[in-house]
């Protein structure tokens, strides 16, 4: 039982990262109908950047994250302006191909700047808490708390602020939003900036919990989409539930069945859910 609890805690930490990735994806998808496949690689770029600032320039961790976040915001805006805006009115598949091209470019840039060695963002958080036989490393606990705070902040932003309201309006009905005076040219930029910033946070978490290496970003974005499929598109609670289900399934599978096949098991769960609830766990039919 302790062992199960232990794996569930691990799963919540991984799941939190998935939720952050999924939140970035779902807002982009909701507004623009784009499956932003490059999101994982962009997130890894954020992780690499943080690593670089800490190890090469000697920045304290929080400052490094902050600078990486700012760069992430700008990168998000650039991606929207240069890559996705030109195909806004074309077939959705074209935007997807652009996303694939972007993924290659960002992966290539990551390789060029940071090499193909795997890197771990150094943190001094090495304490381990123990509660009733379950060990919780300090770092993992902070990751969970940070993820929870970010999810809360994102929810409040979308639900309570004027900009959040505009984002929801554009997602609901673009034409009506234009008539109501929403500037539909700036909203996509805001969305990309926020989504990339969330991605950078996820990248830092992956980089400090596990490691960053070429190819990790692509795996991560697929997990992000799997979370959306599991949870149901366009709902923040759906993404949270989907992310936790996926993360915990994966951790339990790795702990009790096979770590080589943990992804297979996670995908089988996703496909089983699809068979019975094509609209996802929390989606409306």
């Amino acid at each position, binding site marked *: 039982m302790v062992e199960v609890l232990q794996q569930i805690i691990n799963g919540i930490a991984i799941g939190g990262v998935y939720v952050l990735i999924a939140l970035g994806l779902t807002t982009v998808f909701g507004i623009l109908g784009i499956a932003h496949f490059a999101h994982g690689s962009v997130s890894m770029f954020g992780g690499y950047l943080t690593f670089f600032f800490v190890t090469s320039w000697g920045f304290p961790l929080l400052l490094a994250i902050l600078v990486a976040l700012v760069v992430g915001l700008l990168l998000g805006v650039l991606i929207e302006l240069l890559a996705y805006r030109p195909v806004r009115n074309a077939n959705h598949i074209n935007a997807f191909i652009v996303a694939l091209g972007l993924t290659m470019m960002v992966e*290539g840039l990551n390789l060029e700047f940071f090499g193909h060695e795997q890197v771990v963002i150094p943190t001094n958080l090495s304490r381990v808490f123990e509660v009733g036989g379950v060990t919780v490393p300090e770092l993992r606990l902070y990751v969970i708390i940070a993820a929870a705070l970010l999810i809360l902040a994102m929810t409040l932003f979308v639900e309570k602020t004027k900009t959040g309201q505009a984002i929801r309006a554009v997602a609901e009905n673009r034409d009506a939003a234009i008539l109501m005076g929403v500037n539909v040219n700036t909203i996509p930029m805001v969305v990309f900036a926020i989504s990339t910033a969330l991605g950078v946070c996820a990248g830092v978490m992956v980089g400090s919990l596990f490691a960053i290496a070429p190819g990790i970003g692509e795996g991560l974005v697929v997990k992000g989409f799997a979370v959306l499929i599991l949870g149901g598109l366009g709902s923040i609670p759906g993404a949270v539930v989907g992310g936790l289900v996926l993360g915990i399934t994966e951790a339990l599978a790795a702990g009790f069945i096979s770590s080589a096949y943990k992804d297979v098991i996670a995908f089988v769960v996703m496909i089983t859910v699809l068979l019975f609830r094509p609209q996802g766990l929390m989606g409306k039919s």
Partner: protein
Amino acid sequence: MTLNRTVLFYATALVGFILLPQLIAVKYYLHLSILALIWVIAAQGQNLIQGYTGYVSIVQAGFMGIGAYSTALMGIHFNLPVWLTIMLAPLITAFFALLTGYPSLRVKGHYFAIVTLAFNMVIFIVLMNFHQLTQGEAGITDIPKPGAEGGLFDWSQRETYYYFVLIIAVLMTGFAALIVRSRIGQTLVAIRQNEDLVGAVGIAAWKYKLFAFVISAMFGGLAGAIYAHYQSFINPEIFGVAQSLDAILAVIVGGSGTIAGPIIGAFFVVFLPEYLRFADSFRLILYGLVLVLATIFMPRGIVGLTTDLLARREQRKLGQRRK
């Protein structure tokens, strides 16, 4: 394209393909041409589900892997003749496609794409980790050539293999054209254009979608099987998601929903990375950039662009005559 021009195009292309080995001085380019022809088969399959039915599947390389490993393993473990295992491989692939297509076709659009992508990852992970069967990353070596030594054809020659693959690629392209022109093909296009309407007139769209998915997988399985015997070595590396993306690119860049598109696109995805070798480590970045620019400025692919240009010229001619 008008009918005459289409016939002319395919006739010229065919003659060109037949003469190609004589025109190529560098053996390496013949090797690339064989790979490109194998990709033509895979891309024609991809085009059926992606270009005609409008469902972007990201598992074509995974299906190629299933075909490749099926033919190799059957040959090695059961000692079956190569021509038989090459024919059985697409059937085995079809079985897996049926199994995976049913749940994944319950969702649409990007969802479908992601679910199939997950399947590709599953196939890749199994090929990597099921050592007893697939020998993992090390892969399977010494896969037999199609004919015995001293037989009718000299399989040690690249040319022999080139013509063998050319014949199959032509046949499969013809098969794809037949499907597209049939009533089934019309229904597939109708599904792409308006799936709700197809349902509303009483056609069970899911059957047609499943058909397109399974057939497209069979094309992939066949391409993979031919690849395995050509290289006589396979490992999971070339059956990953990245290669499935190449199949999608071949269709998009060539011209999705056209028969000529995948042919052009397949050569594009095989030869372009080779030409980008000069860029060395910037290759991936450049390849991505080409893709993004091509999609923005040439959204209907090379075939779409050419027909547009031809049509414009035609109209200009007409305009001049009227003056």
